[in-house]
């Protein structure tokens, strides 16, 4: 069972991982250097070299390129090249073994602690904390001091002090995997805890173990070399790279080559391993591969092929003409929003509705260049606000419009508000971004705004952090920030999706009242026809990045023209309809069933 899951899902995936690794030039270089060092070290017994321990006093400290000694000789006249290759072999074996030991025990501790939680977790992790409480190498020195210097003892010491690192990493991942529903599902399918740990959890943790190993093996080689350098690791006549360096140190001024050569070798070995390790990490970490960790620019990249003029002379607040946005993917751009046009008048509410992947949120974010870029790119069209094409503005001018004339309210206020600033500070910051007012005045204005959006005891709530408020209150803060500079347009992207229905009703009511009182234009992005029916004057239906139909809300709901709209509306159950709903929708799907 374990075997079948630890093998990669398919050979095609393995090949693509390999190709990805090779596409990374640095990783490929690391692999080749490391591979070369590895092959030479393995072949050491077969290579035509002098015995690494054969002393030759008359020929001591020969410089490199001497006759018969390519890299010269050390203080006892031993051939440095030969010692270097044998020493590399020892350093590699010790470093890799220490990594394997640390990974094995550390991962086991992490897996068990993370899965079992409770007492086992506390006991194991307290033990790990104790080990971590020692400054890294000092514990290793204490252990070597007790066991006595020697290569094997150094190996144990280095492995032991690295166990906490693995245990902590693996425990963290295990805890998050354990909380996933497939673990509960496996239990209900009849699996026991041990089986779940090793056949369900472990396969998901394994990539992290591999990443952690590949990024620490270089470090472990450095540490064992360090102990040997101090004379606590390999004992004469055996020499690893560290002890070669340590012994040659005495002749640093007279024969620097004897120190520099093993030093450079350690560096080359560790560097190649680190390059390779980073490459492996990049391949195995899906976030890095998808570019999810690329730094987003302040404004979405704009590469417009066309810039249509505004076709409406009466200049409503917002006119969007043939807007297209896509996601750059290698050389190609995958379109997400295609040729979308709509307008929004003063005090009007337009709903954009669509299912997941329809491009409705990307449309909303494109208007102010807020689509994360890379990979986002606006490929065409124009956005006119008050008659001005905002996509043609310089970056600074576009940024100046954000939060002033056009503001946003986002979906989940727990993640969209800054977790480390008090809420009033965040509102005040929105005020100060566009007004030359002092901190005190901005704070006062923030309190007023909190009252406007219906937060009672605003003065008390002002210093609360987002996580201390309820979902509804957080969204009210989000709306207060949007109102800070008396905007003309509010773009609300699924503002109530994360909320309970009773809270949703109150937030929608708040938005409606604000719109009426202040003559705000509201662009509401939602997947819920109920919300549209309640709030929007007009509605645009999106599918696959295009608007398939738009018009007056009442007439679209009553008499949808497009097949897709018709089907979408038919699929919404109505309260009071009861079992009749399923009978009503059944025919819709009958013809499409395979």
């Amino acid at each position, binding site marked *: 069972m374990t075997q079948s*899951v630890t093998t990669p899902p398919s050979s095609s995936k393995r090949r693509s991982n390999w190709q990805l690794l090779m596409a990374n030039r640095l990783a490929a270089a690391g692999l080749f250097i490391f591979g070369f060092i590895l092959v030479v070290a393995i072949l050491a017994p077969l290579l035509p070299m002098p015995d690494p321990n054969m002393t030759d006093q008359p020929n001591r400290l020969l410089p490199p390129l001497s006759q018969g000694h390519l890299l010269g000789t050390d203080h006892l006249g031993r051939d440095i090249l030969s010692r270097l290759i044998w020493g590399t072999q020892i350093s590699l074996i010790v470093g890799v073994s220490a990594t394997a030991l640390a990974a094995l025990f550390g991962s086991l501790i992490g897996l068990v602690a993370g899965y079992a939680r409770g007492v086992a977790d506390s006991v194991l992790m307290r033990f790990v904390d104790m080990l971590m409480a020692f400054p890294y190498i000092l514990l290793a020195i204490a252990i070597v001091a007790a066991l006595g210097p020697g290569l094997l003892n150094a190996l144990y010491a280095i492995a032991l002090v690295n166990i906490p690192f693995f245990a902590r990493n693996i425990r963290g991942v295990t805890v998050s995997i354990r909380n996933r*529903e497939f673990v509960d599902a496996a239990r209900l399918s*009849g699996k026991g805890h041990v089986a779940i740990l090793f056949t369900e959890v472990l396969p*998901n943790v394994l990539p992290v173990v591999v990443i952690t190993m590949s990024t620490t093996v270089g470090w472990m080689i450095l540490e064992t070399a360090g102990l040997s350098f101090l004379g606590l690791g390999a004992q004469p006549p055996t020499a690893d790279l560290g002890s070669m360096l340590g012994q040659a140190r005495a002749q640093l001024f007279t024969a620097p080559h004897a120190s520099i050569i093993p030093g450079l070798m350690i560096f080359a070995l560790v560097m190649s391993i680190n390059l390779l390790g980073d490459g492996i990490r990049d391949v195995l970490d899906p976030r890095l591969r998808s570019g999810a960790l690329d730094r987003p620019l302040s404004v979405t990249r704009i590469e417009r092929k066309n810039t249509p003029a505004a076709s409406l002379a009466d200049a409503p607040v917002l006119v969007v003409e043939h807007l297209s946005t896509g996601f750059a993917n290698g050389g190609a751009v995958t379109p997400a929003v295609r040729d979308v046009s709509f307008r929004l008048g003063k005090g009007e509410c337009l709903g954009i509705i669509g299912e997941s992947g329809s491009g409705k949120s990307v449309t909303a974010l494109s208007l102010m260049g807020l689509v994360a870029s890379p990979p986002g790119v606006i490929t065409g069209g124009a956005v006119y606000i008050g008659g001005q094409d905002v996509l043609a503005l310089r970056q600074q001018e576009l940024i100046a419009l954000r939060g002033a004339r056009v503001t946003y309210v986002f979906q989940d206020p727990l993640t969209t508000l800054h977790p480390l600033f008090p809420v009033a500070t965040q509102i005040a910051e929105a005020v100060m971004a566009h007004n030359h007012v002092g901190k005190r005045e901005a704070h006062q204005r923030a309190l007023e705004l909190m009252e406007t959006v219906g937060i009672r005891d605003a003065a008390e709530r002002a210093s609360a952090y987002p996580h201390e408020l309820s979902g509804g209150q957080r969204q009210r803060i989000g709306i207060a920030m949007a109102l800070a500079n008396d905007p003309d347009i509010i773009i609300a992207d699924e503002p109530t999706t994360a909320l309970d229905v009773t809270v949703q009703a109150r937030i929608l009511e708040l938005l409606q009242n604000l719109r009426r009182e202040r003559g705000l234009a509201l662009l509401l992005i939602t997947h819920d026809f109920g919300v549209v029916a*309640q709030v929007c004057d007009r509605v645009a239906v999106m599918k696959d990045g295009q608007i398939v139909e738009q018009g007056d809300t009442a007439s679209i709901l009553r008499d949808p023209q497009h097949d897709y709209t018709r089907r979408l509306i038919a699929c919404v159950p109505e*309260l009071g309809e009861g079992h009749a709903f399923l009978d009503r929708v059944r025919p819709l799907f009958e013809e499409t069933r395979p």
Partner: protein
Amino acid sequence: MSQPAVDMQNLVKTFGGGRNLFGRAASEVHAVRGISLTLERGETLGIVGESGSGKSTLARMLVGLEHPTAGSMAIEGKPWSELAASGTRAFGRAIQYVFQDPVASLNPRKTIGDILDVPLRLLCGYDRDHRARRKQELVDAVQMPLDTLERYPHEFSGGQAQRIAIARALAAEARILVLDEPVSALDVSVQAQVLLLLQQLRDELGLSYLFISHDLAVVESISDRVAVMYLGEVVETGPAAQLFAAPQHDYTRALIASAPRLTVSDSPL
């Protein structure tokens, strides 16, 4: 109707509590406070409530993923404590669970075939040939193509993944299904299809459903009876049509009033 599928009496679940190192009482969360409900055989009981109402805790107790603090439960006549004593497999054979997030409920590193194999092997004890036959039947029952078995969860959309999760629940051949927000993560058109599938399976296989959702209209469309939960208690139960037409409790009324409707109100809010 001799024996109800599930019978709960005064069920209580409290999280936390106890005393910490310094002898101070840790804060307690009363997730479920004394619930009594019955699910009859062949019936769909809807449970409606907002976040924090304790509906998911209730569901997890039913399938043995949480232990009740007090009260009693019987599943097909067998007391909960007896099932718990004989391990999770006893639960698995009697009652199954469908999770809210279908993608998270499927192990990303296993094929659908591997995932369906587990309950067939461990709960039903079928041999290899029998399992292979059953897997095909199951995939067919949830209206998925046959090559589904060789594929991995990430190759499926949310709706397809939920069908697969339903197939896994069916594989155990349990007669009771706890459906915890099974359509909340899905788009409306997919949601309707999954609801149709659930209704059809219930009628064909004679299953009993405990259907949990925050969406009143969805619950009404599939349930025979509905229980409304609020802060860990059931405030009202009744036949679906009757409960929504003439709600008795204030909270039920507030819920119904807040639910968005398709009809455009002439005088907006």
